[in-house]
């Protein structure tokens, strides 16, 4: 195709990696991960509607090491996507585009998603009676 011979503008690799660009692609990556992770929620609800043995199988998988690692990843992805989504909604009002503000809100989002993930897991283990 002739279109393939057109000159291209400089691509990502000519730019220095920055917090803002890293957070932007992470928002997209966590969004995709959450879409996939939702399949587990669907399985969990369908299993609950199917019967006790199906439900216990799904629960056993979620409670295994692999299941817990996936849940840890999904919970962080969820908190990150939600916090950074609120940052996006703030941007949608036309505010917060100054460089210092964009970096400040970015750091707040990262700190909040890590703290929320830790808090949710502590709560879960406490509910189980493990701590």
């Amino acid at each position, binding site marked *: 195709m002739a279109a393939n011979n057109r000159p291209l503008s400089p691509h990502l690799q000519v730019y220095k990696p920055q917090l803002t660009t890293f957070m932007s692609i992470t928002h*997209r990556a966590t969004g*995709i991960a*959450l879409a996939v992770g*939702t399949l587990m929620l669907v399985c969990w609800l369908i299993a609950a509607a199917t019967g*006790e043995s199906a439900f216990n199988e799904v629960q056993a998988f979620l409670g295994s090491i692999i299941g817990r690692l996936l849940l840890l990843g999904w919970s962080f992805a969820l908190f990150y996507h939600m916090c950074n*989504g609120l940052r*996006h*909604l703030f941007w949608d009002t036309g505010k917060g585009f100054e460089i210092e503000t964009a970096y400040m809100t970015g750091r707040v989002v990262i700190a909040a998603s890590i703290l929320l993930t830790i808090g949710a897991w502590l709560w*879960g283990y406490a509910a189980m*009676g493990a701590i």
Partner: protein
Amino acid sequence: MSLRSPLGKVRGLGSAKEGVAHWWAQRMTAVALVPLLVWFVASICAMIGADYGAVRDWIATPMVSIMLVLLTIAVFHHAQLGLQVVLEDYVHTEWLKIASIGIVKFAAIGLAVATIFSIVKIALG
């Protein structure tokens, strides 16, 4: 220079007013998802370790069933809107782009229906 199409000029009409429909739906579902997911994650955290009967009793509570159905609709609508943009950005073969977006939309509807059916079955069962 005008960017209006000849047909648009002849008709003298403006845009179809639907240019931001996708963008707007993504924002509206995002706003809806914040309280729904905070509620859902908090409920799940508090319920860790619950057995089959306890989980079914929880799902069957009317307010919980309603919240779960709303969550399902918002999640799948938001997810398919987002995945559509990702596919539009990265898949450059036209037929593959259209096919993959179609699969995502069909899957989103199918999974949402299966999830809602499961919730309703437990709630009414």
